[in-house]
């Protein structure tokens, strides 16, 4: 199906009343969790996974995509009005956006953020519409060794890029990989790391690990270091909406932000943080009003917000076409696909065309809904922040228990929630990144399958892993991802040591 026909078909599905309802529910929840602290899109989708038994897949993914996009919008609202970024991607927005709000220009900041998000989200979705089918076609010629090399690259880059320390990133990744090994080995039927516990034979539940790491770890961490400042709401009243000058200063940053966000979001370990940061830096360099930066420059809101939302669309490209998750949210969406017995990848576009195109079309619809939900109602959303913290976090724990107990009513899952929750707490205290655990847990078993297939094709020759041009290239990139920063670090420390020797 070519993209245009596919998209038209998708709209016929996304515009059905019940699917519109799911899209609305998703965008609504997404905005709410974007505003609230302690709960993000990955966690929300994980908590909703048990519900998927009763909802048909197209409806569920329309809702999930709404949550994913909505969280990006909600995060910007609180950054601007309260200087509390609800999501990591909204950190840069807080810098300039909150200054603008303090200068009485909050409405303009919200406006440029929302419209920028809409523009970027729509362009990003257009990119997804037209890029995904050819990439999916390309994926047909992928051999097992290519997939294995791609996953290897994803492992390494996630561990190197996320967090501050490579060793800690890799510890996280390997913990995830080890958890992914638990259960019956699919190729030989032997039990691995089950310790004789029958509940572990099916493997470790992704939902349990994700909910424990995010919700339980966060609750323990925040409770132990709780110190809430009363939200200091910047009044919106009296602010003016975007002036002609604001429009003129915003549209270029929107487009540049999209240009950063979409491709970086599509890369393994790209995420939303790097493109928002890049966009902010570039706008700061290019602006004609450098004196305003740090005091509320509209470019510093428009660019990062656009980058943030475009990256969300970018993340969906490798997920839908190759089945490769590049962020925690994407990993949990992959788990949702697996719940339905669907494998994202080239075949998804052929076997489940309704679902894929319905999902892509619903992204356009969702973006429009978000613009309508967010622009006039920004002031209302912020009220969510006044929920008393004791009840907010207690409620999060109860929803977590629904998610964990609801999976299989297993005591082992509850014990794992406690242990993994404590691990999530320690990871926050000692600054270990969390996403690599999830990527290792979900991609590890898939990488093993591809590794075995490749070896079977190559009749046991390990050279099979570099036998195609693509796999050789990807393995080479993976090699450089590890070695280049290490060499640079070594040279830098040697220089410092030398200069110390000279001065000493």
């Amino acid at each position, binding site marked *: 199906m070519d993209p245009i026909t596919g998209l038209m078909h998708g709209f016929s599905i996304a515009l059905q009343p019940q699917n519109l309802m799911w899209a609305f529910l998703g965008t609504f929840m997404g905005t709410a969790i974007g505003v609230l*602290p*302690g709960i993000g899109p990955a966690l929300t989708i994980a908590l909703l996974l*048990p*519900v998927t*038994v*009763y909802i048909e897949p197209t409806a569920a993914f329309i809702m999930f995509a709404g949550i994913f996009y909505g969280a990006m919008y909600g995060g910007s609202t609180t950054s601007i009005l309260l200087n*509390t970024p609800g999501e990591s991607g909204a950190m840069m927005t807080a810098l300039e956006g909150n200054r603008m709000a303090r200068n009485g220009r909050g409405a303009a900041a919200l406006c440029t953020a929302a419209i920028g998000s809409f523009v970027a989200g729509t362009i990003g979705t257009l990119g997804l519409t037209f890029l995904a089918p050819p990439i999916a076609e390309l994926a047909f010629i992928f051999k097992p060794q290519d997939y294995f090399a791609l996953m290897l690259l994803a492992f390494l880059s996630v561990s190197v890029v996320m967090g501050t*320390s490579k*060793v800690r990133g*890799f*510890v996280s990744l*390997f*913990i995830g*990989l*080890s958890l992914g*090994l638990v259960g019956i*080995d699919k*190729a*030989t039927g*032997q039990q*691995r*790391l089950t310790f004789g516990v029958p509940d572990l034979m099916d493997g470790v539940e992704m939902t349990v690990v994700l909910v424990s790491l995010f919700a*339980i770890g966060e*609750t*323990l*961490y*925040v*409770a*132990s*270091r*709780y*110190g*809430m400042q009363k939200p200091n709401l910047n009044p919106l009243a009296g602010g003016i909406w975007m002036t002609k000058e604001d429009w003129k200063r915003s549209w270029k940053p929107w487009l540049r932000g999209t240009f950063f966000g979409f491709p970086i979001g599509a890369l393994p370990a790209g995420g939303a943080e790097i493109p928002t940061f890049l966009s902010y830096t570039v706008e700061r360099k290019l602006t004609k009003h450098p004196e305003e930066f740090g005091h509320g420059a509209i470019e510093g809101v428009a660019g990062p917000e656009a980058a943030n939302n475009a990256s969300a669309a970018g993340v969906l490209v490798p997920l839908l076409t190759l089945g490769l998750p590049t962020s925690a949210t994407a990993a949990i969406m992959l788990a949702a696909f697996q719940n339905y017995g669907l494998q994202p990848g080239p075949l998804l576009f052929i076997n489940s065309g309704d679902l894929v195109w319905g999902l892509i079309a619903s992204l356009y619809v969702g973006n429009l809904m978000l613009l309508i939900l967010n622009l006039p109602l920004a002031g209302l959303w912020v009220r969510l922040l006044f929920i008393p*913290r*004791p009840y907010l*976090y*207690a409620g999060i*724990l*109860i*929803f977590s*228990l*629904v998610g964990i*107990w*609801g999976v299989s*009513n297993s*005591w082992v899952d*509850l014990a794992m*929630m*406690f242990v993994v929750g*404590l691990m999530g707490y*320690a990871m*926050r*205290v*000692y*600054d270990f990144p969390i996403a690599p655990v999830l990527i290792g847990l979900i991609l590890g078993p898939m990488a*093993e399958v591809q*590794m*075995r297939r490749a*070896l*079977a094709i190559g009749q046991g020759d390990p050279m099979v892993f570099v036998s195609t041009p693509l796999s050789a290239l990807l393995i080479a990139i993976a090699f450089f991802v590890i070695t280049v920063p290490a060499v640079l670090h070594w040279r830098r420390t040697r220089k410092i040591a030398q200069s110390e020797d000279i001065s000493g």
Partner: protein
Amino acid sequence: MTERPYWIAAGTVGWGAIVLLKAAELPQFDQYAYIGPGFLPSAVGAGLVLLGLMLAVQIRQGVPFEEQEAEDVSETHAVSYKALGFAAAACALPMLTMPKLGFVITCTGCFVLVAAAFKSERWLLNAAIGLAFSATSWWLFRKLGVQLGGFLPLLGV
């Protein structure tokens, strides 16, 4: 003073060693798939041991461990072990009570404990809110098809 959390390195090495030991019980190679069920566990276990040792070296060199930023966290990151204890108790409670006392009572208990961790000690009011919230969640998610067990398993409901 630099904090030296050697226990994390020890834990990583320990878990890696367990994975390695368990993997050693399995065949490493296979006639048809070439890689046996024990091969990857061995590799991952060895990786964990190695990473744990590297972490220990870094800790010895005095690598800083800075706490992650989060919302609602006080600026000084001052730790209240009492609050941490309450929150940990809330997370441990389901292991004890969920199978016997059921979802609603367990969640009410968790609600009160988490609220206490966040310095809200109006026990009765919190219990009432927690009960209402838990019962509503139980009813709502059951409607959606999530199996959460009986309302009060002790009474057979």
